[in-house]
């Protein structure tokens, strides 16, 4: 901004200018989904904007009230379609706290592996699309090349590439298959190299630096007021990561760092996310090394399906299986709010149980939804091109925003 011809950003213009209201979206290449922005433009400068959301509202929270607990899982992972494992973990974790079910250690580690792989996947999608917004078209393909490997891993372990329904209340649905570990190790060996290549492409690119440095700054205090969490908050210098602060899964046993930024501009947001990829790789590696033997799902027949092999021989198992599949399990009345650190920030799940086999209310505190409130602060009084970059760096997933 320092080298702008005049500085139209802060000073009111000398000549009378007209504010043009322009409608960006819901169908627009840069809105990462169906976000609509009503933007007041003064020349190239954004003077006011209002996000209009709800275009992909599908009533998932309402639909969940009509499904038994175990049938809710595939629903909720379709909210934020880039970080599906996190929705599963939030919901399963909340239900596990409602029914007071401890999951076995192996399940914890498996969940961590998949959560962190999902975090890498999510950040890769973010990096590719944001670089595309900046005009660096090739980054998208490089990122999706690695994303493809992650999806292959998901497919290998769960049978699905996205929306895997892998986490269950009580653990995970299946153990990882033979050959998965080898493939995963190859991937985590490659990934830091790839991150280095991304850095070489972007970090030493003067155009990229000029576009991202010093743009979209929101002070840390303001971010906290607005409830912003995740990489956006960390980029502003606040080392708040719920994997460190709250005790869930086996994260306390992991050795990883929380990358923080200094200025809180778009460049810091980029750096923080890139560093998080590397840290996630470390967590995956440690989890894989420390992966304990044992059952992958809790052995509580009231909530967990009996093993398939028992069904032909055990009447009791068959009854349990039948009850679980037809009616589901009943949960004593109560309410639980369980929050985890998703790639975009605090992903909270509130589940209200009324004693029946269906939840009385499932609410997700989606980080994209909350973070989107900071967008006005990021984008007002910047150029429209910076607004697009800030939106990319905000990384909203509209499926999560609208639910």
């Amino acid at each position: 901004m320092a080298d702008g011809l005049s500085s139209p950003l802060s000073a009111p213009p000398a000549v009378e200018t007209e504010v043009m209201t322009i409608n960006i979206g819901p169908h627009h290449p840069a809105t990462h989904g169906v976000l609509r922005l009503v933007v007041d433009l003064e020349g190239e400068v954004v003077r006011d904007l209002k996000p209009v959301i709800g275009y992909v509202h599908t009533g998932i929270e309402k639909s969940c009230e009509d499904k038994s607990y175990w049938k809710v899982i595939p629903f909720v992972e379709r909210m934020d379609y880039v970080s599906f494992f996190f929705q599963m973990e939030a919901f399963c974790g909340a239900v596990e706290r409602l029914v007071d079910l401890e999951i076995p250690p192996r399940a914890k580690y498996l969940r961590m592996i998949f959560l962190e792989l999902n975090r890498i996947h999510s950040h890769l999608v973010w990096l590719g699309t944001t670089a595309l917004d900046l005009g660096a078209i090739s980054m998208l393909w490089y990122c999706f090349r690695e994303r493809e490997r992650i999806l292959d891993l998901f497919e290998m372990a769960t049978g699905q590439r996205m929306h895997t329904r892998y986490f269950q209340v009580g653990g995970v649905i299946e153990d990882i298959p033979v050959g998965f570990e080898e493939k995963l190790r190859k991937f985590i060996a490659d990934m830091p190299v790839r991150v280095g290549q991304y850095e070489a492409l972007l970090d030493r690119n003067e155009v990229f630096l000029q576009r991202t440095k010093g743009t979209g700054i929101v002070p840390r205090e303001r971010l906290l007021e607005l409830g912003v969490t995740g990489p956006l908050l960390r980029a502003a210098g606040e080392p708040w990561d719920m994997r460190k602060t709250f005790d869930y899964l086996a994260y306390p046993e992991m050795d990883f760092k929380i990358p923080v930024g200094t200025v809180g501009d778009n460049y810091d947001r980029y750096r923080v996310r890139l560093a998080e990829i590397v840290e996630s790789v470390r967590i995956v590696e440690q989890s894989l090394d420390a992966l304990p033997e044992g059952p992958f799902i809790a052995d509580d027949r009231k909530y967990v399906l009996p093993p398939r092999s028992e069904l032909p021989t055990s009447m009791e198992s068959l009854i349990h299986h039948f009850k679980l599949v037809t009616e589901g399990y009943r949960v004593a009345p109560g309410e639980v709010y369980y929050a985890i650190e998703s790639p975009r920030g605090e992903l909270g799940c509130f589940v209200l149980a009324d004693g029946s086999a269906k939840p009385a209310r499932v609410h997700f505190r989606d980080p994209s939804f909350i973070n989107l409130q900071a967008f006005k602060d990021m984008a007002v009084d910047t150029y429209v091109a910076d607004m697009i970059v800030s939106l990319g760096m905000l990384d909203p997933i509209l499926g999560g925003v609208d639910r």
Partner: protein
Amino acid sequence: MPDAPGLELIRGEIEQDHPGAILDTSFDRGQATLVVDSEQVLEVLRWLCDAPGQGYRFLSSLHAADYLPATPRFAVHYELLNRNRVERLRVKALLADPSAGPVTAGDPPPPPVAKASSGVGSPTAPPAEGLPEIDSCVELFPTADFQEREVFDFFGIVFRGHPDLTRILLPEDYVGWPQRRDFPVGGEPVTFTYNERQYG
């Protein structure tokens, strides 16, 4: 989380400043909840935010729930977080349904008609009568802006003093409060070419 005795301490301190504000406490499944009077929820939130030794300055989440057939029927939940001590505290403001009239258990009001028809209820029209009301906490927690709009959108709970209380996720001309328990699931007609005159 404050533990059960800690929760009682907080209750006692609030009772001194704002008598009658706390209706109940609960400590369930490791999560602490203050049940507060909906008229004084703003004072309690401000106290929890500012009082020395409390510092619940981060509003993680604001959502509502419908406890039908219980009375009072609605509750707005404030998931507060003290980021220094890493403690969560849930504040639950109970709200009665004004349209239900005198309490008659087991007799829910008739479900609203789930039909979006254009021209009914312009976005700037004042919220309909007979909706539960509560004070908005946007002044205290700017993050509540979207979330209060969402609660209004889905439960028809009016937040007094909210700067722009309009529907956020549903269309502006939508009629009904779909997250209420007595709202039927699947009541939304889908428009196709053959029936667009009927619904479109």
